[in-house]
Structures are given as structure tokens and as C-alpha cells.
């Protein structure tokens, strides 16, 4: 049976009690002071219960990402707080012990009232008097056995709503605090890539928003048919091992007005995408594969691992390696498709021994997951010197260019958020495929 404590209700009840004429029977069994005292005792017991280990999802302010803290509330009034973020211990995992208390203030308030080196750096005024402006006292809004919703007290005084969550942390899944942060680092690394631009949020009605700055958790959004300048929205977020939570609901989404649905929490799905837990339909994925494929900052290297290159790709690639060895006495290193940013042109790029060469093929996006290439060796600027040399001298290089430019290729990827690697498969002959990655 979940125990529910609701501060709003408590305040309302206290107000009612205060307004009630004395001769009217009280609607509660206990006085407000007794009920507040009981709430404090109940929350104190809840925090300490079952090992007292909780994950805090904390926002210091609306201008920076949220931070994770693993907290173990001890019976003796001490609390161990662990974290791993850029502002503590040079970014390395760190734990410190200090004191905690549920006190009577604006209702029950969880206070971390002695300095903890892992936590209070966000409350410190630093040298400018402001610092991160983070809270260390939290009004408890509601709670059940596994989750406590709190609100920063000082932030509230300033008119800023910052809700902070405590959720129970499994000691089976994460035997030590450091295990959690090791896992979080891995999740974060796998979840997003700062090489990728234009993640996509799709609402239930199909409205699409382009999302950027996701790795910093300082998300920006604009409608696919708009611009960041004209229609941009910004929201900071926190990433946990389960998903992400925006500091505030994304109230600019049309569904918010239409259905009063406030998308704020997103959980990782098996394919790496993020699904909104509030409405169950709003989703965040990576950009379309063809879009991602041609983003200027990307360079897609052919994988030479067993099974990751097939059909003519494998045959011709092996011929390139052999032919390079015979004619140049070199070891052929790699092939890559991507932009030559210096010349703002697409290319087939390679490294043979110490030589880098570019063959400037053209590409186009057929649909969201289909691309095609073309090449005119007689066009001006079709090669750089090494590209020309290799194209002229290696029959296999000419064959590879011809293969790449032979019809359309379908792009597929297992991970919906970070399509790395993806597979490029010939539509006309699916036996011809190559796994590419950045």
C-alpha cells in the first residue's frame, strides 16, 4: 500500500483549519501541528527505510543540465552523497558524508544542513555571489514508497519552480554508488552523440521538432517547418540510466494545449529512442538515416570486419588492397564517404599508406532512408591529385566508384538515436552491402 503525502492538500487543510470557527468540529482528528509533526516523522522514516538509498535528480537552475546524486540516508542523521559531474572532484566519482534532517518549515522540508563536498557546490555563492544558485532545502510535495517529489525552497522564493525527484535505487542493479555512475556514463555515451545534429521529437499528432544541443542536456527545439531563430524553444534536462527528464514540461508542444498533456519525462526504449511516459506516444529519435548520412560533419568509414562487408563490396575492396600493395607497395588503410569541408563537396575519401586521396562523387537523398551517388570523372574538380592517381592506376578503385554509383542504397541501423553503425545495402542487389560508421 503506497503512502501518499500531499503538501498542497496539507496546506489547504491547515488553512481550512485556521479559518474554521472554534466551535465547529475539526474535520481532522489531530491539530495541524500534530499532523505536520507526523508528516515529518513519516518522511524521515521513509527516507531511511529499506537501506535508505535514493537517486536524486537535481536541477540547480534553468540554465544548466541536471545532476545525479546517489544518497544513502542513515539512521544516525548522516547521509552519504555520491556524484560524478564536472564541478566536483575534477569530474571524477566522489562521495562525502554530511547531515540531513526533515524539518518543519513550509510544511515538511528535507534539509541538507551541513556542507557536503559532493553536493553543496551547487549552493555555493562562488566568487560572484551567485554561483549555481542551487537549493539545499526541499519542500516535500508528495511521496510514495519509491518516489519522493520535492521542490527547491529558495528557488521557489525567487519565483522559479524547480522540482527535484528522489527515487529508490536498487542495490541489486547497482551494488555500489560508483556502479551507478559508471553505468550512467556508459548510457550517456551510448544515448547521444555530439557528432549528430538534428535529433527529432515527434508528437502524437505527427508534429516534428528538430532538437539540438542534446549531449549538453541544454536542448533546443524548433518545428521542422520553422527555424530556431523564429520558433526556437529551450529546455534543460537531466539524463539518468533510465531516460531523460526536462526541468519543466514541454509546454510549447501543441498537445499540451490541446490535451493538457505535459511531456516532461522520457524513457529509453530498446532501440535507443526516448518515449514520453506522460502520453506514451511522443518520441525522440535520431535524424532520418539519409539526413544523418549527408550531414556535413559526418564521415562514414567502411567496416572491414568479418561479415560487415558483402558481395561486390567485399570483392572489390579486397582487390583494392591487393592492387595497392602491388602497384604502390603500400598497405591500404580505409575508405570513407563524407564531406570534404574545406571544399564543401562530397567525396569518396581514402588512405593508402601515407597517402590521402579524394574522389568527388555526388550524392542525393532519395527518401528518408535511401541515397544514391553519381560520378563524372571528366567533370572539373572530380579528384584531388592522389584521388586522380589512384583512380587512374587502380582498376579496383574505378570498380568501387562504379559500384557505389550503381543505383540506390538503403540505409538501416539498429539504434534509433545514434545510428552508428548503419548498413548501406544496394536496392538492386541486396548481397552488396557495407557497414559504415563514424
Amino acid at each position, binding site marked *: 500500500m503506497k503512502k501518499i503525502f500531499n503538501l498542497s492538500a496539507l496546506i489547504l487543510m491547515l488553512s481550512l483549519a485556521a479559518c474554521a470557527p472554534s466551535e465547529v468540529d475539526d474535520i481532522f482528528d489531530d491539530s495541524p501541528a500534530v499532523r505536520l509533526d507526523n508528516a515529518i516523522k513519516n518522511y524521515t522514516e521513509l527516507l531511511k527505510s529499506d537501506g535508505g538509498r535514493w537517486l536524486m535528480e537535481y536541477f540547480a537552475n534553468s540554465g544548466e543540465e541536471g545532476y545525479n546524486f546517489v544518497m544513502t540516508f*542513515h*539512521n*544516525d*542523521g*548522516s547521509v552519504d552523497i555520491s556524484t560524478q559531474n564536472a564541478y566536483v572532484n575534477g569530474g571524477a566519482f566522489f562521495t562525502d558524508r*554530511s*547531515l540531513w*534532517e526533515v*524539518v518543519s*518549515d513550509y510544511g515538511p522540508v528535507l*534539509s*541538507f*544542513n*551541513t*556542507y557536503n563536498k559532493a553536493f*553543496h557546490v551547487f*549552493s*555555493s*555563492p562562488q*566568487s*560572484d*555571489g*551567485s*554561483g549555481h*544558485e542551487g537549493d*539545499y*532545502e526541499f519542500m516535500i510535495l508528495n511521496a510514495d514508497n519509491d518516489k519522493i517529489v520535492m521542490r527547491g*525552497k*529558495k528557488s521557489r*522564493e525567487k519565483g522559479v519552480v524547480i522540482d527535484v525527484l528522489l527515487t529508490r535505487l536498487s542495490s541489486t542493479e547497482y551494488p555500489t554508488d560508483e556502479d551507478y555512475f559508471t553505468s550512467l556514463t556508459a548510457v550517456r555515451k551510448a544515448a547521444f552523440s555530439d557528432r549528430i545534429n538534428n535529433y527529432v521529437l515527434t508528437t502524437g499528432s505527427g508534429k516534428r521538432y528538430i532538437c539540438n544541443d542534446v549531449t549538453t542536456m541544454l536542448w533546443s527545439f524548433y518545428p521542422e517547418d520553422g527555424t530556431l531563430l523564429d520558433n526556437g524553444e529551450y529546455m534543460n534536462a537531466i539524463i539518468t540510466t533510465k531516460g531523460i527528464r526536462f526541468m519543466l514540461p514541454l509546454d510549447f508542444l501543441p498537445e499540451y494545449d490541446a490535451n493538457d498533456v505535459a511531456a516532461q519525462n522520457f524513457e529509453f526504449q530498446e532501440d535507443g529512442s526516448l518515449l514520453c511516459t506522460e502520453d506514451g506516444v511522443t518520441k525522440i529519435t535520431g535524424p532520418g538515416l539519409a539526413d544523418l548520412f549527408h550531414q556535413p560533419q559526418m564521415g562514414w568509414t567502411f567496416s572491414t570486419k568479418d561479415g560487415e562487408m558483402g558481395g561486390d563490396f567485399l570483392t572489390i575492396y579486397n582487390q583494392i588492397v591487393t592492387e595497392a600493395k602491388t602497384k604502390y607497395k603500400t598497405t591500404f588503410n580505409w575508405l570513407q564517404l563524407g564531406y570534404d569541408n574545406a571544399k564543401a563537396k562530397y567525396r569518396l575519401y581514402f588512405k593508402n599508406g601515407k597517402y590521402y586521396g579524394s574522389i568527388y562523387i555526388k550524392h542525393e537523398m532519395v527518401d528518408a532512408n535511401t541515397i544514391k551517388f553519381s560520378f563524372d570523372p571528366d567533370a572539373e574538380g572530380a579528384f584531388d591529385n592522389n584521388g586522380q592517381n589512384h583512380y587512374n592506376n587502380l582498376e579496383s578503385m574505378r570498380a568501387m566508384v562504379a559500384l557505389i554509383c550503381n543505383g540506390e542504397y538503403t540505409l538501416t541501423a539498429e539504434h534509433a538515436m545514434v545510428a552508428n553503425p548503419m548498413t548501406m545495402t544496394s536496392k538492386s542487389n541486396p548481397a552488396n552491402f557495407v557497414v559504415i560508421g563514424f
Partner: protein
Amino acid sequence: MKKYIKYASALALVAIAAMSLSSCSEKGLDDTIFPDVSEELDPNSYTYKFDKWLKENYLDVYNLDFQYRLKDNETNMNYNLEPATLENAVDLAVLAKYMWFDVYEEVSGSKEFLKKYGPRILMLVGSPAINPQTGTIIVGLAEGGIKVTLLHVNSMNPLNIYALNSDYFHTMHHEFAHILHQTKSIPREFQLMSLGHFEPINWESRDPHMTHSLGFVTPYASSAIREDFAETIANYITLSDAEWARIWDDASRGWATDGDEFGDERITYYCYYYYPNNNPVDDAGESTQTYVESNKVDQLDDGTYVLRNQYQRGITPITTGEDGNRYDANGNLCDNAGFVLDKNGQRIPIVVYPVEDKDNVNGAEILEQKITLVKNWFKEQWGIELDDLRNAVQNRVSTFDAAKLDELRQQVYGQ
């Protein structure tokens, strides 16, 4: 430039409120105004030893609540503050007792004096209170003698007793002086001593040296009579002989500045000036008077002040005469490096002059009179020799070391 404020007081109203509270209360001196915590101390608590020590040494003895757990609602919510570390709270608790409460007990002969007049709450804050708009930093504040807040506790070095004395115990002596003069008023003679020289608004911009020469022990003392009184007492007790020697020296000099007295930045005052190359005027006939810090000035055996390692240069061109010696454009004999030589063949130093004391205040005499007045007031009104208090504090400061700190800590940790 950041402005440091040692303390800020909200004296009168809170004092009145405090007196009102005490007059409304039927509790006697032996009763505590705080809830009885004896039954609440949990032997299994992480802080049991410390809490027990605080109860036995502050609450039970002085009726004082030593608040080391920070409560937002006890602070000015406009500031971003951090709590004190438990370790520093323990250190400051034992040190405050040793350096302040025990000193008064030693001099007054009992704990009753502080129990009656001492603050009721001592609150610790880990960070300073920094105003983001002005950059002003508060490291201590008091509210009518009821509550003294000591800030910046997390930067405290418990072995630097001089800094502790200056940053924390000075504040406590200062605020306690306010409590005392609210009970028995400041002598009228003291109130009249510096009239016309106070600066209630811009005291923060005043230069310490210059304020010494006006007869104030600190710039803050020049903000109001009551602050002058409290600062005189607190500094007399806490400053060392060497620090007072510098104040006396400052107070005896004239001070001047070439900065903007009404500008935003604190300006520097100087007590020495010189003329570059010993020329009082330049080619245009304008004065070349230049101020210089005292640490760049030496005094010769004959009492003359000179610029350290600076000498008069010859006027170019410097040429070789028929006698083979070097001469400047004015015919002065020079050495090969171009410095003018006197008749003994020595380089001529750049002469430095003391700034004329034009403030019409004998700062040293005023300060001495103020100290005499506060000593007499302490003796006559409270039966306490201020020199005894000072000697006790200075003795504890001079004999303090790591072993003493360990001994004090053991009062808590060794229980």
C-alpha cells in the same frame, strides 16, 4: 574592487524587540529560552558527542543555541549561502569557547556575565554572503545582540589563530560591545570625540590609513558613533601590539591621495611623496609631485627619507669633458651609467617627503583618548579591566598551536 564588511548590525529595533521579549517573559536568568533538548539527544546520532558538548558548554551554561546546521529561513534569502562543514563547526565551537567565552569568564570571575549579556544564538554559515550586484562581502553579522552569525566558516583555517581572531572573535567582541552599550550608554565624552568626521554612507570607500589619522581604528568605526565605540573595544582587545604600532604610526601622519575621492573604486592614500629626479617642476612649470607607498621608502641615518634604490639621473646629453669625466647637460658630474654624483662621488638619492597632516586632527591623541574612555567605561560600568581582557586574549593567541587545537577538539571527540 570587492568591499568587505566585517559585520552588519540591525541593532535598535531588534534590541527593543529583545527587551520586550525579556520583559514579557517570566523566565529567569537560569531558564533557557530554547526548548529542552536533553531528552532529544540521541546517543546513536552521528553528532551526539558534538550536540552533547554544545548543550553542556553553551546551552546549559550560557543559554546559547549554537546553530551549526544552516536553516534558510534564519538567513537573508537574497543571498546564496552554503552550510558550514561539520568539522569546521566543531573547530569553531571549541575555539569560540576558548577565545571568547572562557576569556570573559577568566576576567570577570564567573560565567554569569556572558550568560546575562551574551548573545542567545550563534549561527554558522559556510560561505560568505556576497551581494551579486555590488560585490559586497559580509563575513559576520549581528541582530541586536540576540543572534550573531559567523560566515565564511568553510574557508576557516583553524590553525591560523590570527585570522580567526580577526575574522570571528573580533566580530563577537564587536557585537558584544553593542549589547553592553545598549545596556549602559556610551560615555558622552566619547560621543563627542569625532563629531564632524563620520561618514555614514561611504565609509566602505575610506582608506584605513586615512581613517586612522582621523582617530578611527577602522573605516567601519567612522560610520557611526556606536560602531566607533564597538570597533575601538573589539580592536583594542584583538589586535596585536605590532598591529597597533602600525595604527599609531598611521594616526600620526598626514595622508593624501591623487585618486577620485568620490569615485566608485576605493582609492589609495599615501603618506609620502617625491619629485622625479628631484625636480619639483617639469619643463612646463607644472608640479611633478608624485605619491609613493611607504614600502618603497627608506630612511637614511640623518633622518632623510629617500626612494629605495632610486637615484638622480643626469640631464641628457651626457658627454665626456676635457678632463675625461662624464658631465650632463647642466654640467653635473655623472658616472658611466648616467647618474649624477655628489661632491663625494656618490650617487644622489631621490628625496622623499612626508605628506603634511592637514586634517586638523591629531589621530593618535584621539585614538588614545578613546581607548582610555572605553577602558574606564568597562571598569566603572562592568567592573572589568579591558587590559586584562586584552592580555588574556593576546596570551591565548600567542600560545596557540596545533597541540592546543587538538586538546580543544578532544573536548568533543574524546568524550
